[in-house]
């Protein structure tokens, strides 16, 4: 079985997390710029005397599909690399992936990830 691990992290932690994942043998990952709303509050901008509240904070979403037995290692690596101890460090979500195909070769599942 394969699982997708998606981590919402602080943008400037991306390089650290990427390196930590490569170290434990993760072969690939995909990254998206998102904006998040949670406990960490946005800031206020001021223009010509008018105030604007920014309700969302910039976050980076990184997701990687791995074999089930790698999930714990991946979570550990992310926690180790992405944590600052401050509110807004983000969350990790694990979901099930039923099938993986490599477009180039048509290989499926575990083979497609290697």
């Amino acid at each position, binding site marked *: 079985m394969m699982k997708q691990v998606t981590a919402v992290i602080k943008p400037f932690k991306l390089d650290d997390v990427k390196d930590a994942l490569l170290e434990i043998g993760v072969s690939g990952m995909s990254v998206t710029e998102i904006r998040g709303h949670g406990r960490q509050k946005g800031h206020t901008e001021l223009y010509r*005397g*008018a105030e*604007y509240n920014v309700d969302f904070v910039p976050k980076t979403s990184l997701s990687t599909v791995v074999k089930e037995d790698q999930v714990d290692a991946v979570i550990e690596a992310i926690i180790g690399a992405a944590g600052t101890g401050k509110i807004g460090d983000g969350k990790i979500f694990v979901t099930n992936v039923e099938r993986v195909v490599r477009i180039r070769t048509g290989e499926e599942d575990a083979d497609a990830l290697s």
Partner: protein
Amino acid sequence: MDVFFLTMGAAMVLAMHAGFAFLEVGTVRKKNQVNALIRVITDFGFSTIAYFFIGFWVAYDINFFAPVAELNVMEGGTHGYKMVHFFFLLTFAAAIPAIISGGITERVRFWPNVVATVLLVGLIYPLYEGMIWNGNFGFQDWLSANFGAEFHDFAGSVVVHAMGGFLALGAVLTLGARLGRYTNTGKVNAILPSNIPFLALGSWVLCVGWFGFNVMSAGTADGASGLVAMNSLLAMVGGLIAALIAGKNDPGFVHNGALAGLVAVCAGSDIMHPLGALFVGVVAGVLFVYVFELLQNKLRIDDVLGVVPLHGVCGAWGGIAAGIFGSTSLGGAGGVTFMAQLVGTLAGVAIAIIAGFAVYMGIKATLGIRLSEEDEHMGADLAIHQISANPEEDMQTH
């Protein structure tokens, strides 16, 4: 020689129109940037036509419809000084729609706006321009007789700026606020500018071009005055520093503050003492910040770039200030009276306010003046020009 002098002045003020364009591009939302650019250059085009065929004749009773041989412009003659003078004064006249443009942007229809431009530059502006700068209708004589001096407006604080700024008042009120700007519950929604660097670029171009606006208003190379240059400089600096402080480091206020000082110094730049000019600039910078906030947030007038406070209020302040700081008792060169300045200024402001409502209400009633809700929501760029400001990128992400 003087042809060269005025050509440089005209080129510098022509450049200011690019400045108006970028000040507006930077301040509006991205979906209206293309429209801002096209509207400014189109206004310039139709202003030229209107001023060439009607306006210059209304103000100065001059036209150019004789064959070249009879116009006395070739090398033996005047080298076409009148023609380059037309060019120089046109760049002033065309500033009227360029000023108004900043107030009505993001919601005005395209061709009705062109009609307004033609009416203002062909008729309204040259009417007052001729009264002040060509002695038409005996207004200046009347001021002289009653208040001891003519109305002195060296480079157009009132003739150009207060005129444009207060014409914009009628235009802005006729159009109404942008969708979503003010809610029924009394909330004021901020609409953020798209691009501060473009805004700043526009401001810089205007600042530099302004030295053509002011210094070349002397008309001849030998008449050029270092006093005008220095006063313009100090008022600009006074305005920007005052707006920096009053506006709490805000980029919009700082960059417009420099312009506020320059607007205010035009009228008396040839007669005030540099310290007077500095003071006039400081007041203009502060005025701009406070009147801007008052109009936008208290009076709920959606004058997008703040052209009423910038050109209108600071221009009127400049007209009056020339009567104060131009007097010899405050170190000025004299030859002005406070009352003549006050009356002359108020006359200009009154004409502008009345004409602004008349022209824009008239157009609204006949042609319609405002984009449909749907078009305004989509943005003037796609609605009118079928293209966005960054088409390559927008095609990918939209």
